């Protein structure tokens, strides 16, 4: 099964928009990976394939508008195509949730972006829920609870 090691969202300017680590790494290693990958991925030309060999694992990336979605996967276990599919599914879900998602949506609602990701992907980085509808359902449920909660607080 596709096993993500990490998922990074990096803007074209090289800013990190979201990062999720599925393997325990020290913050030094994290910074190293982030910096190096930002460089290599941003330098890639269109028409090149979306898979790179990076240190001991593979990295699959995909660009949506100004955002790069970069996923590190375990070489022998990960299915590269599926990872691309997974990234796409994530974007689709966000698109449905935010309604024509753009980079700013993710910046300002990064908790929501994380929540969607958590719904989709299991702890070890493998996909848990492939149905967009289910994810959205849970998300709205959570949001309504959230609002409810807020209301409760105001009323108290």
């Amino acid at each position, binding site marked *: 099964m596709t096993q993500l090691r990490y998922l990074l969202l990096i803007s074209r300017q090289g800013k990190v928009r979201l990062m999720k680590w599925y393997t325990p790494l020290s913050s030094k290693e994290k910074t190293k990976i982030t910096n190096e990958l930002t460089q290599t991925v941003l330098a890639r030309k269109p028409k090149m394939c979306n898979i790179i060999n990076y240190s001991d694992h593979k990295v699959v990336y995909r660009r949506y508008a100004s955002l790069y979605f970069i996923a590190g996967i375990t070489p022998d276990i990960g299915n590269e195509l599926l990872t691309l599919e997974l990234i796409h599914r994530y974007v689709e879900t966000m698109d449905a949730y935010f309604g024509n998602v753009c980079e700013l949506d993710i910046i300002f609602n*990064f908790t929501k972006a994380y929540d969607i990701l958590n719904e989709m992907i299991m702890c070890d980085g493998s*996909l*848990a829920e492939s149905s967009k509808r289910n994810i959205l359902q849970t998300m709205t449920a959570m949001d309504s609870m959230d609002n409810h909660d807020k209301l409760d607080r105001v009323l108290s």
Partner: protein
Amino acid sequence: MSFGLSSNNAPTAEVVKQRLRPFGIFFEKSLKDLIKGIRSHNETPESLHTFLTNELVQCRKEANSSDINLKANAVLKLAYLEMYGFDMAWCNFHTLEVMSSESLQNKRVGYLAASQSFHRDPDILVLMTNLLKKDLKYAGKDDMVKVGIALNAISTIIITPSLARDIVDDLFLMLNSSHAYIRKKTIAVLLKVFLQYPEALRDNFDKFTMKLQDNDISVVSATVSAICELSKQNPWPFVPLSPLLYELLLTVDNNWIIIRLLKLFTNLSQVEPKLKYKLLPKIVELMDSTMATSVLYESVNCIVKGSMILEDDYNTANKCLQCLNKFCQSQDPNLRYISCTLFYKIGIVNSQFVSDYNDLILRLISDVDISIRSKALELLRGIVNENNLKLVVSTLLKQFVNEEVVILNNNGNGRGNGSRKEFPILIPNDYKIKMIRTIISLCSMENYRNVTDFEWLNALLIDLTIVSQDLIEARDELGKLIGLQLKSIMIKVPDVRNITISSIIKILTMYDIEFKLSTVLRDCIWSLGEYSSLIENGEVMIKILIDKSTRFNADIKAILIPSILKLLSTWCNSGNITLSEVKDVITIIIQFLNPLISNSLFEIQERSIEAVEFLNLVAQSIDELEVEQNESSTELPMLLTDVLPSFFGGNELRPIAKGTQQELQKNLTHDYLETPFLSSDDWNNLFKQYDIDEGCITESTLFDGSSDEKFSDRDTFYENDYSELSSNVEDKDNPFSNYNDDATIKNRKEEQLSNPFYLTESDDKANIQGNDIFEHQEYNSHVDELVTIVKVKNTITPSEHVAQSIESELITTSNKEQKKKHKKHKKLMKKVKVLDDEVIVQPDQSQLELESKKSRSLSPIPNLYSMKPRNNNGIFLQTKSKLGSFNFNKDEINDLNVIESEQLELDKIRQRFQEQSLEDQSTMNDGDEEVIIIKKKRDKSKKKSKTKKKSKSKDEIKQIEADPAGAIEDK
């Protein structure tokens, strides 16, 4: 804050703020403000940094506040700031507080922050346990989300074994929840728990796997994922599930799950080869029916990685390859890339499979994407043959020079006009390095089978030398590679030696080669010396080398010294060289060598001292000759015409099969240290034959017979030698003829009786004359010195003996091989003759097997497992007791170790058997003259350091001289 109070006193600012907070009105910066602030401070990194540090201080203050809402806000901001590289581990306790908040909103924030930052701090997890237990309790409808959040968080946080143990019971309860959502999440958490605490899986295996039959598809999907993960760690327990999984594969129509099932089967079939027969037809069927590329890809992947292709299964292989071929033709670079990887894996099983696709692969090595090219390089070995080698190599070579561009057609899909853009393809150095390595391995593979034109190969190597000079990061390695190729062509392809040596000289004279690609020189210089007979004007070569030598590395200098001597030797004896010319060259060489005598490296020191000493002698004898004859005489001293060539003029070097040297060393025993060079019988024979007067021995005579090759006709050699000696001695009057010390003689006699090197009295009588005693005594002191040296040198001989015994043992086998070689040769004859590696010792069979296994297997685990006797039919057989404190992961490692050590032990035993048989063989030969005679054969085929040869033979002679001395003294 109470209402009553506020009506009396005007509320303080703090109180107002606090009251407004629940309405979402903050006077502290909210996350939105923070983000906006970051965006407005974006101009320079410095200003951003100061802004962020200020914010961080602010957050710290807010996090310390007692208001839970404020704290939550701070934690949220910190979670955002973490993406900018700020560590937020310090606020773990605050996060914990936020997590325990009653409000779901805050709880959410807390759990998010926890899942982002907690895995660094196991201490906090202890504190978390109770909180988790509480949050996991499902009570009422609204709690579903809360439980979901908690489960989410646990699944992301690294769980410690103790935490896992504490929550596992709760989790299994939740597995029966009526909500599919909770069941699904629980399975995700259970996976994490099982990895840390495998006992839980052992005890609840059925409960867990039951979820494969859950009526909710997402629960099934999660279970399949989890089992897939677990089976990666330890596939055994899940093999019994395969019928169920197979059923699932047949019924499920969700592509995501199908892919996961395929992955799972890949893992399982690696340990259970029987699965293959059932699965393969189904997978092939799936390949035919599915439309999704990723399913197609995964099917091929499953077939390849689950080792379902046998070496002769052309049908399946072709099916897969056709599919991959289609991928490679596609416009999508990703498809091309991944199919390249799989192509390679199929190629490993049997390179025959791939050989039909050479057009495709040729196209792939000029793909626009470098990473695809790099993958395709690995495939080349499978497709090259003598017809397309040149084409392939020239395609690659062009990539070093040509600048390529990608043309991108922007067809104006809604964004402006359709434009054509050109991007240059940058070729990274590591790809270039890989190309060079590939080219070399392609050319040299299977003993140059594919090379028809060695002139071309020579030119190619020169090109590569030029190209490698710019690849700074790997040029040492590449230089070595190229040098090795040159040397091996030199040795293996006698027909083109002329061409090869000229390309070597070309490389040697390249500008700055000694700086840019110094490693290539080592083998080049060696070849120059070894094949110096191909060079007409050796003195020029010597001068060039000496000119350049100041800039050489130490290891090259060490090779240079013997090479220069070889060159000198060949050149001097090429005829018509005058004394004065020789003298000039020798002076140059001595000048070059003199500073090296004090070199810090022992190797250089030793070689240069030896050479200088010898050359000084030569210079002396030239001087003497000059006195007798005129300068232009072409009659050179004996030292140059006979002695010098004999250092090197052994038999021609021939290639030896890989590993021979190691095999010889492995069989080295030390019994031979005590074996005398000649047995006492030999001595008797010698002395009976030559009734000699002992005399002094001149240096030249000593050297004269020192060539190893003459050992076979030992008898004649000694005859000459001794007759010469005796003639020397005849006219000499020994002034110490009356020398007679009874005491010393007695002592010595006693010593000699116990020493096997000495002859018995009776035999000696005839040979001995009284007046020689002094000489002998003098020698004896020599002998003492020598003995120590000789002993050291002796350590070399055992390996030789062994080599011989093995060789004789293997004569039959090598004969067979000879026949095979002949066949091969016939095929090659139309081309250039390439020498084959000669097999002296059959390499250890078990090791060969291991090696080939290593090279063949992609995943070492299946092989090792399949070797292991399968006595574990239950679920947790080998692990039941061990599992206690290990997770699956560790168990696996242990198993591997056990298997490996078993294998090792087996190998050791085998080796011991072999050694024993060898020992028997060698003891039979022990002490026989035969042993020494065979030595000559060995010399033929074995490359040996020249210096050793020289000094050793010298020592042998001295020993021979010394021993009769002792023996003669007897009287």
